[in-house]
């Protein structure tokens, strides 16, 4: 599956990563090489094969729904880039 420069721009937007215009060509080339290598998978007949998400085919273990954590907001906010009154600050979203 060929990938074009504007596909890379769309993916980068989905991934929320800015790419400099002067680098987009090289990024496209590298990703094309990786996808070309990955495309070997398309030749394999997997019509009868169940996908494997966990190497031990383990299923999700659930614990009883009990409160086990204490409130550590101050410790967590101490390492944040910008906080005020217990809230995380980001640029204004709505005018």
């Amino acid at each position, binding site marked *: 599956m060929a990938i074009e420069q504007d596909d890379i721009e769309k993916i980068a937007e989905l*991934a929320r*990563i800015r790419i400099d215009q002067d680098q987009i060509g090289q990024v496209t080339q590298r990703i094309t090489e*990786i996808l070309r290598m990955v495309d070997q998978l398309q030749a*394999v007949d997997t019509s009868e094969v169940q*996908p494997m998400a966990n190497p*031990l085919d383990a299923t999700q273990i659930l*614990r009883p729904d009990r409160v086990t954590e204490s409130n550590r907001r101050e410790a967590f906010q101490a390492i944040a880039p910008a906080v005020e009154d217990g809230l995380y600050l980001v640029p204004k979203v709505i005018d």
Partner: protein
Amino acid sequence: MHDKTVAQLMAGLRDKSFSSAELTRCFLDRIGAMDEQLNSFISVNEEAALAAANAADARLAAGDTAALTGIPIAHKDIFCTDGMRTSCGSRMLDNFIPPYDATLIKRFNAEGAVTLGKTNMDEFAMGSSNESSYYGPVRNPWDTQLVPGGSSGGSAAAVAALLAPAATGTDTGGSIRQPAAFCGITGLKPTYGRVSRLGMVAFASSLDQAGPMAHSAEDCALLLNAMAGHDPLDSTSSPEPTEDYTAQLARQIDGLRIGLPREYFGEGLDNATAGQIDAALKELEALGATLVDISLPNSHLTIPTYYVIAPAEASTNLSRFDGVRYGHRCTDPVDLHDLYTRTREEGFGDEVKRRILVGTYALSAGYYDAYYKKAQQVRRLIKQDFMHCFEQVDIIAGPTTPGPAFALGAKSDDPVSMYLEDVYTLAVNLAGLPGMSVPAGFVDDKPVGLQLIGRHFDEARLLNVAHQYQQATDWHLRRPAAIAGGAA
């Protein structure tokens, strides 16, 4: 003191030949004298290390000891350490001081082990050469023009250079075994889920596994005893019971059936490396093992399968780095979108960005079935190959890598050629199996690693075979010439 195994250091601490404070000082001095050249540590906290050593000495004096009390250890900078920077080799986490300890760190601390510092690594554990670290490349102690391997290259180099008697690493596609091979040390990737991932910065959650890196199989067993076990805080950690991983070390291996996958000995394997591996296999045969020809027919699909699944999982895991709650944030964002996109542009290096983009593509609407689901199906075929082989053999052996360590810069501009470095290690992660690399000789003075692969949760058997091999050989006792005569 610096050239002893963990087992010897444990004995020395108990018979009071030296104290943990003396031992810790010795390694800190070696790091201070030699690490400028190797760059194997990102952070060293002398004060905390010496305080932990003094506390360990008090425990030793009071007789209140666990196996590793007073033993200095280096931790890969992927494990969260309360109050000590955990960078994961990335600018994104250059300022990140975790408010908690990873379960693995807690377990070592509870034993009274001493954290010397945090070791360098490929950014977010993505790499096979340690060149993608924000903190610069690590150099191989055997030849500083060579890479140490990756992503746990700092841990491997630190142990090989005798800057730490042992270290922790993580292995998502070979990141313990390949640097262990390149640096001439012993490394074990346990079964998926054997060691808790809580507090280990996530790369690919269905593949990531922590393990020990040390001079010998015996030392790896001692470390694994401290690391292994179910963690209620990691729902993917296994409830399978653990065992004393040192208990089987002395067992003879006569009658052991060792499978040699023909796909691991064909095209792509360096001739001189093949010669060393053949000699190692003859040694195992001389110890009573039987060599059996086997086939892993889907081996050619492991790299493509891995390079869909690992980037897909990475792209979701790394979406948490958004510049809002912790880590890097760009300056003066004009709006929220600008905050996200510039923070991630600045915080991540090229290889990490590439993998996020590949993973985002593989998971995007219209491509999910062709890439991600397809890779998960082929992943099952790869695992089934191993399961069939384990009906005939007890363990599988082969080379850890296609050749010995390569020069710094040799592959850093060509991602696909870098990916080929992991051709023999990736399948083990895809199948969730335990795998080891054991020193098995040299090619042009560069170490070669023998890979041993076991059944799920059969770490004790792998360690047993590796230990018996190390009783009969001395490759694991060789030290880099420039290092043996070093400080302290």
